[in-house]
């Protein structure tokens, strides 16, 4: 492994920028993400920064079960996120629609129909500690040796 790759791994491990997108949740999951910022859970000690800006994000947290307004906007937003990137869904809504998936609904779950989802945290809402462990777990797998894996993928495609 090159020194550059080792440097990239070390930097990415301690610097994960997060943007959360509410696609029709009830706020319950959003305030649990906010609670992660509180000094008790202190998400920044793991190097996770909540910026809420898709253009500098590494991980997108999606809460909510896709309301009609987001169906065209969420793939757009996903395109603007720079590589390497990942989506972690928070709560039951992005997986199944939770209690809102009933006759007469407006939402259209799951979120994985529209953008590729790496990890999902079920719960209505999940606890802040579960959210932090999900982000850290997904980031470790995705961002370590990202360029090496990309090259392997491209090489595999050519041969």
């Amino acid at each position: 492994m090159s020194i550059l790759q080792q440097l990239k791994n070390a930097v990415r491990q301690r610097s994960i920028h997060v943007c959360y997108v509410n696609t029709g949740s009830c706020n319950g999951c959003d305030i649990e993400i906010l609670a992660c910022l509180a000094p008790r859970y202190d998400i920044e000690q793991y190097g996770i920064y909540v910026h809420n800006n898709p253009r500098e994000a590494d991980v997108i947290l999606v809460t909510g079960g896709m309301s009609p307004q987001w169906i065209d906007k969420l793939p757009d937003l996903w395109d603007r996120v720079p590589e390497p990137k990942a989506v972690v869904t928070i709560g039951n809504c992005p997986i199944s629609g939770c209690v809102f998936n009933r006759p007469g609904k407006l939402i259209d779950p799951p979120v994985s129909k529209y953008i590729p989802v790496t990890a999902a945290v079920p719960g209505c809402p999940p606890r802040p500690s579960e959210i932090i462990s999900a982000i850290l777990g997904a980031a470790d797998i995705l961002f370590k040796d990202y360029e090496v894996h990309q090259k392997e993928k491209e090489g595999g495609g050519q041969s």
Partner: protein
Amino acid sequence: MKKVVDVSLPVGPIHPCFKEPCRIKCETRGERVVTTEVELGYVKKGIEKIMIGRPWQETIFLAERVCGICSVVHNTVIVEALEKISGITVPRRAGLLRLILNELDRIQSHLLANYSYCYTIEHETLGMYLLNLRETAMDSLEMMTGTRVMAAYVVPGGVREDLSADNAAKILEATYHIEAELKRFVRMFETGPMIGLRSKGIGVLSMEDALASGVVGPTARAAGLSRDARKEDPLYLEMGWHMITRTESDNYARIMLRFDELYQSLTLIRNGIAALEPGKIRNGGEMKAGRIKHTIEAPRGDLTYDIEIDSAGQVVFVSIQTPSIPNIEVATHAMMKNLASAADVTSTFISADPCIACAER
């Protein structure tokens, strides 16, 4: 046609200052913001439509998920409406437990609102202090109900779980801790010169606009209007509730009013725990058909449920009027009119404590 504005400045839907997606369109002339318009619809789920035709037991869980921040109050208001239709009475102990839980919910909601404001004016230190204090209130909520958010604690006829003497003592301890810490943070907010510069005299809501718009909750009380649904609740009056109002009606007044209400909520919780007597926590009863309009005071203002159920127990009609609807309207059309700087748009909007999930449902 002569162009009267320089730049149309969109804010949102994903913005670092907003907890929820909404777009504010600002028409600016130089640095001055002339008019603003809010664009909603990003979290519309159609909860009322889902509720119609369902049994009343399901509507309780659906109502709780209208808003995650004030889930307790949505649970309380729909259960109280169903109780009023059927004439079910609540034991005194259960009524007091509901009051204690609602005030704990108000504490965490107001602390979150003030955290958001401090974060918006870039005073993150005070914001983080307040967010840490909120965790103490969340611990008390968890101790009482078993979970942090979406507790479904209030059930028809009473409450789901009793509060043991041990846990009551722990909640009392938490109220003293919150009060001691809050005094320090309120002094920081009151005397901070930069906070004063960013807050005083900004986003002023005139009395005419306040009266015309039907604004509710802390935003109305900061403008000097005596609007609070708790004034008609005999239990609240017995526990020593009184109306708190301010007259300045700017961003500073709205945040300070929430701080004042926090002290009052702490007193109400203490009085409620002192008045607890051993007894039943749940009465029985039979659900009947009927229609009712019931209002109670949510952390953000008057919350009204208009609900009709038929003899089979199905919901025929439901209409939810949440406090955020008039507050968002008045924030965009009256408070943010002629703002001196585009930097004040987000802070003025957040100072009205808008809850987009409530407003759109």
